[in-house]
């Protein structure tokens, strides 16, 4: 295992922190805390720290909820990944995980929809979803991408790569 090479790759991409493996709530929580402490030490505003943290939480919980709802077992899901990188004067937060082929397309189209909304439209959509009855079995309210967009400085990016006949790998990136 060439960890030196792996580390160089991280450095080249500006990745400050990264977790790769099966997500559990405690891993999400602990990685989040470590990230927050790290950002506080960078002397950025408290609200910027919270924006990065909030986007991280929405992305990480999205991954975990998705795999749970779709009953994709850890052996099928393999590892999921979340990374925070420096990007210009700000930060990029990315998540990557296995999805069913059809879901990859649907998720990207939702990202594009949210990207194309004005702040007013996003607010209206947020309110509609808040007022919608909870979908049975859902672990979230479907508000995640809107929450991310609210805190982001640019459009979210989404890419899907085919893995096999059943699965694809989705990467979502948000910028703060």
């Amino acid at each position, binding site marked *: 295992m060439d960890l030196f090479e792996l580390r160089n790759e991280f450095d080249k991409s500006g990745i400050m922190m990264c977790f790769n493996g099966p997500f559990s709530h405690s891993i999400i929580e602990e990685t989040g805390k470590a990230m927050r402490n790290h950002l506080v030490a960078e002397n950025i505003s408290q609200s910027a720290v919270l924006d990065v943290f909030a986007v991280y939480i929405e992305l990480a919980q999205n991954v975990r909820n998705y795999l749970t709802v779709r009953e994709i077992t850890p052996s099928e899901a393999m590892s999921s990944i979340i990374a925070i990188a420096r990007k210009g004067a700000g930060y990029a937060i990315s998540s990557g995980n296995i999805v069913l082929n059809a879901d990859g397309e649907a998720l990207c189209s939702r990202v594009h929809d949210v990207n194309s909304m004005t702040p007013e439209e996003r607010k209206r959509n947020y309110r509609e979803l808040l007022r919608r009855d909870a979908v049975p079995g859902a672990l979230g309210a479907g*508000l995640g991408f809107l929450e991310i967009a609210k805190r982001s400085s640019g459009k979210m990016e989404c890419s899907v790569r085919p893995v096999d006949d059943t699965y694809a790998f989705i990467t979502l990136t948000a910028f703060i």
Partner: protein
Amino acid sequence: METISIQQTGSTPQVLFDPLTSTLCLLGESYPENSFDFYTPVVSWLKSALQELSVLTLDITITYMNSSSTKCILDLLDIMEEAYSRGVATSIIWRYDRENPRSYVLAEEFLEEVTFPFEIEVLTK
């Protein structure tokens, strides 16, 4: 009437009812593993408490909540709104940190959803 007391954790707020002041306090951050599971007992408690109480204040100091928690908080507000329409004196104090303007914006959004008294106050440290 039963009281409610849930200890704060890293990702869930403290939930505590003070019968002397008839205040339900939520304090901390809210991004539970499963928000609906976490808030279900709070929702049930609030529903039955508002059958007995004539006054209830919800005192919220949540510096960060994830998106699914906002949906659960709205459920609490809806229950309070229903009680208010029956004559129960429900109200909210929402405390926000000046360094965290998004908490203020979120409070304003919730304020639009209800008609009972809703105060937004700066958190004094």
